[in-house]
């Protein structure tokens, strides 16, 4: 499979390592139900047949985390963008910044 890295151009999937679903955001660790939310964040995944937003790390290239839209049925890649750009586009500043958990 080839992945279009936004910086390096099209590269073989061998250059990347795969993490998985790119949609869950790190929950607020100070939330009263933080443990349940983290459980979902760490373990619960949809397994869609079709379009899937996922994280790929370009380990042998620019070392950027790339959000790739891949069709899980065909492996067709519809697009890819750098993590930072993806977050900006989502209007979500970042994962939750840890609060005072004491």
């Amino acid at each position, binding site marked *: 499979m080839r992945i279009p890295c936004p910086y*390096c151009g099209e590269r073989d999937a061998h250059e990347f390592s795969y993490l998985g679903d790119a949609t869950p955001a790190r929950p607020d660790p100070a939330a009263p139900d933080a443990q349940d939310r983290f459980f979902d964040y760490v373990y619960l995944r949809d397994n869609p047949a079709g379009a899937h937003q996922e994280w790929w790390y370009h380990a042998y290239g*620019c070392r950027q985390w790339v959000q790739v839209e891949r069709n899980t049925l065909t492996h067709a890649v519809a697009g890819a963008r750098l993590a930072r750009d993806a977050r900006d586009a989502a209007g979500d500043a970042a994962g939750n910044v840890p609060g005072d958990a004491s």
Partner: protein
Amino acid sequence: MAEHWSHPLDTLPFDTVPPAGHYGVADMTGVAARRIEGLSIATLAPARGAEAAITETMRQALAMELPGASRAVFAGARTLIGTAPGRWLALSSLDRDIAGTLRAALGPLAAITDQSDAFIALDLAGPKVADTLAKGALIDLDPRVFLPGMAATTVLAHIGITLWRREEATWRLLVARSFEAALLRFLVSSAAEYGFELDARG
């Protein structure tokens, strides 16, 4: 049927950097590789929001243009390679300490890390460089596509490299020091059919 030739890797110890010499087909040098000594190398990463200031300072203080993509920019003895968004490799064959030079010029604008010992630099020349690299790389290195000034951080025989084409027939490659023997073994093996010259002097 008797063996009439033996493969160079069959007699080279696997954990030794192959010695200088001619490998493979005699009377032909399809690829010549030369280890470049005395390069000073550093990585350069701008502090948050300092990219514009760095671009300007590099231009004025060092007369260098920061490449906006995976490209190599040459200015005298210095080279800048784009390796990631907001990340460059700076190399110099004259400055003994390019990291120091950059730090002096950029101050707190950037994180500078000396990497002079992290890499072995190899110059590759000859008509069969692209064919040889194609035996380990998974990117299009066709000389009609990978033009002088283009650069790539990628893999060669499962080993991470940064590669750029300097001129029509010369390429330079950086490989992590610990992989030097493994990478040269790959080159010896892959270029043997074209004739491979390692570290020719003069």
